[in-house]
Structure formats: C-alpha cells, structure tokens
C-alpha cells in the first residue's frame, strides 16, 4: 500500500543558485583585479618623470656631481667654488651658470637642473619650470633619477 503522506517539494526556481554563482564570480574577479593591481603598482624600476630626451643630460649632471665630490675629497677643489673649476656638462650650447657660492643652475626649455653644495655634500635636482630659478625656488624638485 503506497504511503499517501507524500511531501511535495516545489521545484527550485534557481534564483538562490544563480545568486551564489554570481557571488562567487564577483569574489573571483575582485581577487584577480586585486592581485593584478598589486603586480602593476609595484614595478621594481619606476620610470623617471623627466622626459626621455633629458635622460642623458641628467646622467651627465649626476656623473659631474660624483666627480666634484671625488675632486673635493682629493682637495683638488675647495670653497669658494668657481664655476670654471667644476666639470659640468653643456647641453645644446647651454651651460650651467653660478647663482651664488653654492648654487649652480642650467635652464633648458621647460626644465631647470640645479646642483647645490650643502653642509653634508653635493646634490642635484631637476624641476619643471618656465624660467631659470635658483636652488631655493619653491618648485616640485625631483632627484635626477626620479
């Protein structure tokens, strides 16, 4: 005798499964985007903001700073510093100019490069600029390799 007490289960409309499936898709996508952005946002060698065409000028300025430090260490140059004694590069017939005893600058197009003698030593920077400025101007200064 078949049991007449049969429980009737309404067929699932699939909404729950669809919701779960979409949720899993969203989580997987979010994880993938997160991981990709991590890889993308931590490049080992970020490119300089300085336009490519100034890369060699910046390199030559950087080399000059090293050489000035070595010359100074060997006591071949001393304060007061004279522009003529320092091995600065020229660029398209433009030369560095001496703005005060410790500040030297080269203005080229829309960029200015400065080399300065601090108490601790020499350093060099570049910044976008519409005009020639001295080492203390309030500009967005960058290291030569940045």
């Amino acid at each position, binding site marked *: 005798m078949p049991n007449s007490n049969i429980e009737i289960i309404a067929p699932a409309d699939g909404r729950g499964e669809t919701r779960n499936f979409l949720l899993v898709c969203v989580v997987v996508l979010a994880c993938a985007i997160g991981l990709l952005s991590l890889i993308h946002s931590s490049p080992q*060698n970020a*490119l300089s903001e300085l336009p490519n065409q100034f*890369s*060699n000028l*910046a390199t030559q300025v950087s*080399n000059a700073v090293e050489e000035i430090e070595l010359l100074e260490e060997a006591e071949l140059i001393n304060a007061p510093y004279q522009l003529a004694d320092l091995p600065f590069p020229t660029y398209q017939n433009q030369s560095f100019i001496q703005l005060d005893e410790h500040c030297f600058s080269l203005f080229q197009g829309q960029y200015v490069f400065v080399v300065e003698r601090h108490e601790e030593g020499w350093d060099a920077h570049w910044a976008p600029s519409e005009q020639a400025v001295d080492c203390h101007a309030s500009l967005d200064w960058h290291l030569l*390799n940045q």
Partner: protein
Amino acid sequence: MRLLLLSLLVLLSSQASARLQVGITLHPYYSYVSNIVGDKADVLPLIDSGFNPHNYQLNPADIERLNNLDALVVNGIGHDMFATNTVDRLQPKNLTVIYANRDVPLIGHDEKVNPHTFVSIDAAIRQVYTIAKELGALDPDNKSYFLKNALQYAKTLRALKKPVQQALLNKDVSKLRIASTHGAYAYLLQEFGLTVSAVIEPAHGVAPTASQLEETIETIRQQNIDVLFTELNMENKYVDLIERETGIKIYYFSHMTHGAYSKDQVEQEMGHNLSKLAEALSS
C-alpha cells in the same frame, strides 16, 4: 723555521679570504668591476659565457656560487632577471646586491624601462661610480683605491666618444633618420643628440613575422630612414632583406653580452660601436 712558514701560510690564506668576492651577471659588469677593483678583489661571473640572458635559469651550481659571494653586481632593471628573481627569492645571507642602475635616469616607453644602460658611455660611467661606492662601503680599506680607479676608468670610457664627436663637428644631424633592430641603442644615441625613429624587432632576438617585416619596410620607406643599426652576433637574415628592399645603410653594433668575459671588453666593443657610429654619421 717550520713555525715561521706556517704563520706565513696562515697570513696569506687569511688575506686571500679577506679579498672581496664580487659576482656579476652580465659581461659589461665584468669589465666595470675588474677596472674598479684592480687586484684587490676577485670578479666572478655568476654563469659561464655563452648563455642567453633572456631565458636563462640558474642551476644548482650557479646558486652554490651565489652563496659564496660577498657582493653581486646586477643590471637589475630587466636584463638579468634570471639572477635578480632568484636572489629575491633566496635572499642569500651575507650577500650584498649592488643595483648598478640605482642612480641612472632611465629611458622607457609605456611604463617599460629600457634596460640597455650598459650600451652607453655616460650611463656606464654612472654605474661605475655607483658600483665603486658600494664596493668601497664593503671594503673601506680599499675605498679610495676603488674610487680612484673608477675615476680613471670613466676618463678612459669618455675618451672613446672622440671619433663620434669629431664626426659631428659642423654636421647637422637633426634630419638624420635612424632605425634599429631592437631598442638597445637609445642611451648611446642620445649621448650624441640622436634619436631612434623606428625599432624593428618585436622583442630582443625575435625575428619579425612576414607581415611585421612588410610593415617595417613600408615604415622605412615612408619615414625616409637613412641608417639601420643592428646587432653583431645575432642571426638577422631579415636585415639583408630590408637592405635589399630599401637600400638603407646597415651598421653593426655590439650588444656586449657575448663572448668571453674580459676586463677590456667594454673598451673594445664600445670602441667598435662608436667607430661604426662615426662612420654612419660621416657617410
């Protein structure tokens, strides 16, 4: 007497072990470091010559060598990832990794850095100074010696520019259109105010497909490219085809990552590159 000999041996062996053991990953760094350290340190290629840096994987013997080094000088911006990836993963104790390009203002396109700073004079000098300073920090007794050698080597490298500087005297190169088979020469050419108008290979050592080659030939014709710089020691059969089809003048540059490691490789091969460049500019 026996005691004296023994003491002498102990002294000699302790001096030998005190010498810096400096590893390098690519040929130019062998030349740089050898010129900096002179006879005060040992320069050891991480891997034997004849490898392709673009697809090399370190083997256990290389890793053993890595573990015995005091310092490893690396390009670090994409040309020796076979070494930098392993070093990052293993982080060998007592190893100082010297990133030669740390202070170099880099050239790049589309967020991708051009790693060929060693095919250059000024960027090479910048790297030599960085390496010399770092080695001086590891071996303070020889710091002045390293820096003095670095300065002397920079002078030697700079002197190599002379033939090109002479070829450029009173010459207007603003209209000279240059192509290269791959992007290795951007740093070198920029030193002389020259820029590359077209790069042919899709990647280093990868020959272009037939359609890419057709496009290249068309680009060379359209842009009136005057000279093509291509690489020595690479089989570039398609370059001959470009020469035939366009009549363009082709000059061969060394990429400086082939052959035996030697102290004067950079001087020799950059000398060759610069004499070829002078020839191209004079023609």
